[in-house]
């Protein structure tokens, strides 16, 4: 058999088509930032804050997507498990990092169990997981209300500090600040200025490149280019206009600080997502996600693999919710509503980053969170500048979240139809050939 021609499959139009949603959002973000008239220093600080708040939960969506189960909107249920964990932690008055660890430890078995049930149910509705998980989230909300309004306080006794005064059931709002001591329990451990963090990261990358060069004997030119690029980034950061955005040094704005431990936790999750795909289990996720029939024929237990994916995702989502609650600027949560939009916003964010119903990476999750929240931050001011009414911005947020998900679903269905066409005869081509002959 003759040699196979290596096709260069990269084309700009294909790339644009694939990431149309992402580029659209980049354009919109830029437009909104300009129109909103907000100070760049403020935008940057808010963006980084929201990135560190939301990234964890968005990253929790990746494994189910790779395992072919679409966007797991049932992460809402993971968030509920986390809120149970937080409630008990507050009730038992455990504070600080031990409190967060306790909440996470309570979340682990609860979310695993819920994930197991979600997985079982989703296995009964293969191909409908995205919508199925969304409905499961709504359904679980009812059970959650029952638990928090009636069972907690009546059947499971709680301390007065979390129940409604003079009645049963859990308070409407749970507070993590003050004596409760959970607010910023992770965020507050160690802060570094953005500037220092950036240089540390650049230095670490440089060290990594050097080590790789000496161990693997890579090409010297590549190394030189890499080091040069790092130096350029470091240098550009010192340009006053750019530097000021992050340090506020020239305009008297605020210095942006990075909660190092939170970022480290997010980093570890990224590494976990990447690493698990290199294991036997990850290979199963990928195989099941791409073709269940083939995976089954190779002896992979498809249903079990899918359940594991959802369990991991639900637990991670729960932990993500804890990270969110303790983060800088939150501090309290609506007991009966805080979990409701979790799936929606996380799902929309990862799709904005260029992920699809069947493909997702860490990078897409992070970029998506970044872009999605840049619109969130600026929508209100932009709307009041454009229409004189900041409420429009509020509508726009909801419109945006649902709109992105609808577009992703349509694109997915459309691509599926394209692919199934490719499987059969190419009638278009045949018609074309015949037309050529007639000419």
């Amino acid at each position, binding site marked *: *058999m003759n*040699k*196979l021609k290596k*096709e260069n*499959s990269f084309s700009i139009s294909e790339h644009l088509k694939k990431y149309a949603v992402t580029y659209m959002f980049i354009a919109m973000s830029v437009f909104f930032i300009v129109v909103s008239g907000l100070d760049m220093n403020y935008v940057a600080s808010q963006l980084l804050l929201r990135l560190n708040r939301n990234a964890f939960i968005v990253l929790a969506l990746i494994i189910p997507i790779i395992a072919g189960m679409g966007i797991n909107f049932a992460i809402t249920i993971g968030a509920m498990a986390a809120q149970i964990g937080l409630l008990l932690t507050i009730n038992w008055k455990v504070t600080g990092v031990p409190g967060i660890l306790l909440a996470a430890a309570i979340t682990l078995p609860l979310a695993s169990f819920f994930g197991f049930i979600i997985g079982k149910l989703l296995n009964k509705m293969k191909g409908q997981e995205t919508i199925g998980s969304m409905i499961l989230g709504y359904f679980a909300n009812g059970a959650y209300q029952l638990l928090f309004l009636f069972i907690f306080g009546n059947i499971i006794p709680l301390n007065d500090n979390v129940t409604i005064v003079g009645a049963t059931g859990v308070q409407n709002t749970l507070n993590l600040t003050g004596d409760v001591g959970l607010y910023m329990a992770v965020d507050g451990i160690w802060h570094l200025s953005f500037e220092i963090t950036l240089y540390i990261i650049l230095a670490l990358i440089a060290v990594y490149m050097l080590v790789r060069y000496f161990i693997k004997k890579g090409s010297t030119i590549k190394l030189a280019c890499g080091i040069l690029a790092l130096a350029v980034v470091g240098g550009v950061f010192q340009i006053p206009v750019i530097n000021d955005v992050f340090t506020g040094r020239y305009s008297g704005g605020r210095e942006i600080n990075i909660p190092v431990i939170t970022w480290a936790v997010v980093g570890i999750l990224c590494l976990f997502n990447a690493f698990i795909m*290199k*294991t*036997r*289990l990850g*290979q*199963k996720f*990928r*195989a099941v996600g*791409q*073709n269940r*029939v*083939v*995976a089954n*024929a*190779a*002896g*992979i237990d498809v249903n079990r693999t899918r359940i594991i994916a959802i369990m991991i995702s639900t637990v991670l989502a729960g932990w993500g919710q804890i990270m969110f609650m303790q983060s800088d600027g939150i501090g309290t949560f609506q007991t009966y509503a805080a979990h409701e939009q979790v799936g929606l916003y996380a799902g929309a964010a990862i799709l904005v980053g260029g992920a699809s119903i069947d493909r997702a990476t860490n990078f897409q999750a992070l970029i998506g969170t970044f872009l999605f929240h840049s619109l969130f931050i600026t929508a209100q001011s932009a709307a009041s500048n454009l229409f004189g009414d900041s409420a429009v911005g509020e509508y726009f947020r909801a419109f945006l979240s649902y709109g992105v998900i609808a577009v992703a679903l349509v694109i997915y269905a459309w691509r599926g139809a394209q692919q199934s066409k490719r*499987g*059969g*005869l190419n*009638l278009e081509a*045949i*018609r074309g050939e*015949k037309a050529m002959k007639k000419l």
Partner: protein
Amino acid sequence: MAEYVLEMNGITKEYGQNAVLKDVTLRVRPGEIHALLGENGAGKSTLMNILFGMPVIHSTGGFKGQVVMDGANVKITSPMDAMSKGIGMVHQEFMLIPGFSITENIKLNREISKSWLASKMLGREMEVLDQNKMAADAKKALSSVSIGIDEYSLVGGLPVGYMQFIEIAREIDKANMKVMVFDEPTAVLTESEAQQLIGVMKSIAESGIAIIFITHRLDEVMQAADRITILRDGKLVTSVDKSQTTAEKLAALMIGRGEEGMMRVKARENEISDEIALKVRNLWVDMPGEAVRGINLDVRKGEIIGIGGLAGQGKIGLPNGVMGLYPAVGEAELFGQPIKLNDPASALRAGMAMVSEDRRGVGLLLDQSIEENIVFNAMQVHGDYLNGFLRLKNGRAIRKYAEKMIKELDIRCTSPLQPTGTLSGGNQQKVCVARALALNPKFMFVSEPTRGIDIGAKQLVLDTLVKLNREQGITIVMVSSELQELRSVCDRIAIVVEGKVSCILKPDSSDASFGLAMSGSKLSGGEQA
């Protein structure tokens, strides 16, 4: 060492009352290429399902007979069990993941991995894949099927021909492989690729692995096989050495029913005119699993022409394409008038009607009454049975016509109001015919008219078709998987192979010529289309 690596002795399998395998024996020697021949429904797949311990066998009550490997009785409980006993399968539909590299596909679920701290705690699932070792194995397996290709490239972008070889490489890579089943391996290959595949099969056989070669291409059987087993209607016809036989003999044995199973129908009295009723030129139909690839056919006015061929070759795609039910490209004329393709309504208006092979899906509205079903198309297409300005249903006319049809076609029912979903298969089929007739067609497609109905009802349905043809002069194109049925009622039989008419035969042509025609063999005679 035992003489046979695999023996399947006295295998009998029944699905309910229906015996699909009756006392079949298959014996395969090590290093032998053993061809397994038979028409659709002869029992080849069931036999292979038993060999692989498929769940469908166990969930329907198991089977009688014994499976012996290397002289020892074995019980194969699941496909995984079959795999571990050294039985491998090269699938007709590729079992490959396009987004995986060749290596990953070859090693799917048999990955080589390294243990580390987390895997020691959490189990083998957490072991890290060793891509280098996997690639080395894959390379070895690929070289044994003699294709030089980068083992890291993705399967998705490869030409179809390569995929078959990757499937084979995957099976070879499995340790202790003893018997490999090739299910129609050349169906998707070009001629030169098929030649290469046969070469690979021979070299695998030389290494001592036995091969069961399922195919309908007799030329390839004669070229590759050492020994041949033929099944027909669930029974063993014969097992012969290749040297003892010829392609013609095999074809005759495959079909070989002679007069058996022929139905008696009313003989033709009038001559068929030379006028062309339907002219099809270079028609392509994108019907999944039954694609038509540039078919040409002339149907003469007043004849019954049969369309035969094996499943998946495209015989069912022809009526579905002409009637506009599946996307089609090409030219078709009915009595000299061009037919608009991809538009079922205009096909019906042109005077064609179709009795679909998918009786319960396309053919009938199962919750509706018999009379509603019978007049439904006529109402929709011609506006018949509608009254006055508001175009309301004319209940009386509908009832009258329905009763007439029930009587003429002998539809067994409680009343014209009985929902069709509650009728037996044969009676449902008659309702379908009645519905087609309500359109007053000049031309009818009848697709698989006797599928899933019992013998008595079969005779009635066929008699009805012949009567319509003889008395009302309706030209009929009858598609059927049952050759005997076509030979009973048709004036000519076109055999469709790979989406084209391979040849047109007379009903009294020999078994051998039908067998050869269906296998697409170039040796077949008959009137060329």
